[in-house]
């Protein structure tokens, strides 16, 4: 059913901290690894060891330069499905394969119904959907629906693969519908943002902007001074100068 459900109370999603991400691509790799063996068809590659390898991935990390001068910086920018509240990819689907779950807001594709027309990928402003080159069905982030509710996994593993693997703790998973949840608090404290708000998709996933730089006029720490030993006084001053004199 591709009508959007009533807005769910629970809105599972990710919070991505652009201040912390170092662009190591571990989340990208672990996403591919988990999802190639998990929900639905494997994530295929074409010409994997040839001249122009390509393939379906559910999470990709861009890198941007932002600003000029002292305040400028390099920002690593992970991007996957934002599980939008007004998901256009759901309503354009002609078959009912693309759907948003009423219970937790996760946007999924029923791969047995998908005809691979690609219209959902065209309707997504974020490029979150990629057609599987081997299976001919649309692939997208499932928020690791086969991990987060999986009683066979130890409790600490019941979060999306990208979150579990992030070595810098730049990715967080939780209920953004609950204002008291850890992720919601984080978004409130750091003024979390929506991507392309002008598209009116109301993304659930939020991004935490890089923290402001320390003021440029703050005196920089002198590493040379830190490396130098304290100048001795009293008895040790006498020992120091005597040893110096001895040659």
């Amino acid at each position, binding site marked *: 059913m591709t009508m959007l459900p009533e807005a769910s109370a629970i809105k599972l999603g990710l919070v991505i901290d652009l201040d912390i991400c170092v662009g190591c691509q571990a989340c990208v790799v672990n996403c591919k690894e988990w999802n190639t063996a998990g929900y639905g068809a494997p994530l295929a590659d074409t010409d994997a060891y040839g001249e122009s390898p390509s393939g379906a991935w559910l999470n990709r990390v861009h890198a941007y330069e932002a600003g000029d001068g002292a305040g400028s910086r390099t920002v690593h920018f992970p991007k996957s499905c934002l599980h939008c509240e007004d998901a256009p990819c759901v309503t354009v689907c002609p078959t009912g394969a693309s759907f948003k779950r009423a219970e937790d807001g996760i946007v999924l594709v029923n791969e047995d119904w998908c005809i691979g027309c690609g219209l959902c990928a065209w309707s997504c402003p974020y490029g979150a959907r990629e057609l599987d080159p081997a299976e001919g069905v649309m692939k997208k982030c499932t928020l690791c629906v086969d991990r987060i509710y999986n009683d066979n996994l130890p409790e600490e593993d019941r979060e999306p693969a990208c979150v579990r693997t992030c070595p810098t703790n730049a990715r967080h998973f939780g209920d953004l519908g609950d204002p008291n949840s850890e992720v919601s608090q984080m978004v409130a404290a750091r003024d979390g943002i929506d991507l*392309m708000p002008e598209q009116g998709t109301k993304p659930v996933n939020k991004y935490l902007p890089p923290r402001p730089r320390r003021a440029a006029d703050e005196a920089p720490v002198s590493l040379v001074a830190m490396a130098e030993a304290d100048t001795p006084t009293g008895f040790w001053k006498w020992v120091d100068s005597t040893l110096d004199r001895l040659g």
Partner: protein
Amino acid sequence: MRPAWSIIFFTTISGLGLGLAGWIVLGLLPLMTPASVMGVGIGTLALIGVGLISSTFHLGHPERAWRALSQWRSSWLSREGVLAVIVMAGLAGWFAAAYSGGRVPFWGNLVLLVLIYVTVYATSMIYASLKTVARWHHPLTPICYLMFAAAGGLLTTLALLAILRLPITAALAQAAIVLMLSAWGVKLAWWRLAGMAKHAGSIESATGLGALGMVRPLMPPHTEENYLQHEMGFVVARRHADKLRMIALLLGGGLPVLILVLAPASAGALAVAVLAHVAGMFVERWLFFAEAKHVVTLYYGETA
């Protein structure tokens, strides 16, 4: 956007067939003999049907295409499919009635006519409803599709009149000229207005990093072209856009109008006019897709 041949063929041929059907149910093409009913009926349904079937060729799973009829409540693609099936069934009934010498009541023709143009509208809305492609998401987009269906359909009706050796009144030929010129007039306006449409967003709003200043891509997330760039980042057309627009305009509009002016009763000339129009429409539709820029390209450093 990547222009899929099956989609270009579908929108062009089905659009022409639906336009023709519209003029037929209006009674502009008097079908006197069972043979002419049979010929025109099969021909019209084939135009619509072949276009529809070809649209399934680009699917990852064409064998599941029937599922696309299920989500008419939210999806324009689904609505288009459902409407096309209803129209084809209605037209089959219409031709069957004409074949057996019966007459379809006025309201029946009216309902069919409305359904035909709502189907064309639904085709256009598959694209016009996408906010992610600024130039498609424009009120003129459906009008272009509707006008071309009507103009191409009337031109084809005239050609069939000539082929069936039925009289073509001067008023009808003039109407065809006016309609064809208006359709291309709307298209020229679309190129000018919708073609210039920009996305409201920017790389700054796409990344949310605008507060830091200007944003520039530093490293792409992959070394080779991916599905997104293949599908949404087609650039070949933009280089030759002006030339291709001229070709579309001359073949699809100029030559047919010239023939309508000079030889409005010649079956051969009108057949050439229809072929030229279809060829021009192929170029026009190819450009419609190939020139369109998707908002996701902002992430790859394209400007809005």
